[in-house]
């Protein structure tokens, strides 16, 4: 979304395509049009992501007015210096957009939306804030919603509500959702496709089903095994040795090699390319075949 301020962050290279157009080649003005209207984003901390000094209704109405979802001030109809008339129109517009904001709050199942629209963010609970945030970002029916750890700051029972809400909203608005999370459980339940990232690289990408069943990258495999599960019997947990590297001086070659049991000298030298190992399943590992084999052999040992 190009929301990282420059400096310190800069996109060094690469392209981002949205509906066939490269976003990086767009002017700032066009990007502003796309943001909130076609691509919108919700964040991890609903407390800090909402402006504390404006009411919920105002903040939602702002997007609506901005992207002209409720019409706009008609410049032709009003004389240039007719300030009073202009104000009147603006007021009308505001009224309409607040009304629509209340509707969108109702859509995300906020009880008593009229009242909530007049409240400030700090007067709401965490779950309510995240709902309001979703309402705000879906107000203009975007085509893509980026959700950055939307439930991490919430309790499990509320998390479950929000996840269901997001799925429900997706069904209604037909938007694509890009969910960023560290919680594999949330991914397994909500996503169709998943990309696994390690130290700045996508190491594996594919359908949720195939990734969880046949992880081909050693990191994905380790990750799946280290999490304690409530469905499995207990015992010692598998561990990935070592620590996550920092990104200032990442390891050479494949960034996972210092923690990988399959690592060879090749891994130290060249970063592996992302290859399609089966339909819609990509892996970046020099030894994905070995990994696959070991999974299969283990699977077979258990099966018969």
């Amino acid at each position, binding site marked *: 979304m190009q929301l990282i301020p420059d400096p310190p962050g800069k996109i060094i290279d690469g392209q981002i395509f949205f509906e066939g157009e490269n976003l990086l080649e767009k002017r700032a003005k066009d990007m502003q049009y796309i943001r909130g209207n076609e691509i919108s984003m919700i964040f991890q901390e609903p407390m800090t992501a909402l402006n504390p000094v404006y009411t919920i209704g105002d903040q939602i109405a702002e997007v609506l007015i901005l992207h002209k979802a409720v019409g706009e001030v008609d410049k032709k109809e009003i004389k240039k210096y007719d300030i009073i008339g202009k104000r009147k129109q603006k007021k009308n517009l505001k009224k309409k957009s607040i009304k629509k904001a209340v509707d969108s709050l109702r859509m995300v199942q906020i009880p008593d939306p009229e009242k909530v629209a007049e409240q400030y963010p700090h007067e709401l*609970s965490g779950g309510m804030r995240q709902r309001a945030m979703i309402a705000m970002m879906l107000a203009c029916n975007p085509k893509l919603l980026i959700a950055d750890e939307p439930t991490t700051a919430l*309790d499990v*029972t509320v998390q479950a*509500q929000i996840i269901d809400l997001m799925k429900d909203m997706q069904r209604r608005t037909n938007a694509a959702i890009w969910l960023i999370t*560290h919680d594999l459980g949330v991914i397994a339940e909500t996503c169709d496709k998943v990309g696994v990232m390690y130290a700045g690289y996508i190491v594996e990408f594919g359908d949720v089903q195939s990734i969880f069943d046949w992880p081909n990258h050693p990191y994905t495999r380790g990750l799946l095994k280290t999490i*304690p*599960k*409530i*469905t499995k019997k207990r015992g010692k947990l598998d561990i990935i040795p070592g620590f996550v590297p920092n990104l200032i001086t990442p390891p050479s070659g494949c960034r996972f090699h210092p923690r990988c049991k399959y690592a060879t000298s090749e891994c130290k030298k060249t970063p592996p390319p992302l290859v399609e190992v089966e339909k819609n399943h990509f892996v970046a590992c020099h030894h994905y075949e070995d990994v696959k084999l070991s999974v299969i052999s283990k699977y077979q040992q258990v099966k018969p």
Partner: protein
Amino acid sequence: MNDEIILKTDHLKEYFPIKSGIFSKVKDYVRAVDDVDIYIQKGETLGIAGESGCGKTTLGRTILQLIKPTDGKVFFMGSDLSKINKKKLRKLRPHLQIVFQDPASSLNPRMIIKKIVGEPLVINGVAKGADLEKKVLELLKTVGLTEQHMYRYPHEFSGGQRQRIGIARALALNPDFIVLDEPTSALDVSVQAQILNLLKDLQKRFGLTYLFITHDLSVINHISDRIAIMYAGKIVEVAPTKDLFKKQLHPYTQALLSAIPIADPNIKSKRTHLRGEVPSLIHPPSGCNFHPRCPKEMPKCSKIEPELKESSKGHFVACHLY
């Protein structure tokens, strides 16, 4: 594990006063821990699970007398901790230790590791000089650190390593009982597994008793023998881990377990939906404090508070359904 009860609470309550008005009059209370009865047997791990703000952390601190309880008793090896004087309490302190959630703030940033881990030994006059150094090194090795870590400051360590240091400090005085307050929730999953394994090893080696506090039910399933579920300051269900995951009695426990996303796309969970959110601890609902969200609410739930009763052996529940 044997049946000897090492620690027991009796109607434990912890209310924090809220002051307001011109003369700072106490207007109300935050009922963080409200009438909690639990017991822990020697060598076992009791897990306390609940959502944020349910009072589970306060419970841990109140048990250790880091906060004086408002009412109720805590028995540790037969003596009532809430009654005994400061001096005696200080004598008992070595037996009761705690590992904190946030490895960043639980280590004094201006002390080297040797000082941090050695502090309990110095305060209690256990060791001095070269002996101290030897002891500290031994402790560090126990938790998987080495000699070269002794003279560094906390900020030079990663989260997992810091948590190991915190564990070493808790072990310094050979405690019998350790409260583990969300020891892994600030860590990455891959590191979380390392710490959990370490804790299990240590328990076996030193015969420790754990009170494991967490909001993460999959972690608690992995480590504890029995689990107590806490909701808004009260214990709603206590059962051996296996029983609890097989059969949940309290509607809240059922909802809580069903809400956990499972990291396996093949299992499609059937979810019990809860209305609303966790109530405030200042004005908890009347009767059973879960009734406004309960899918199985009955008329008497809003009037009479259910007691914690044993429904089958070792399985306690506080609900009018049983």
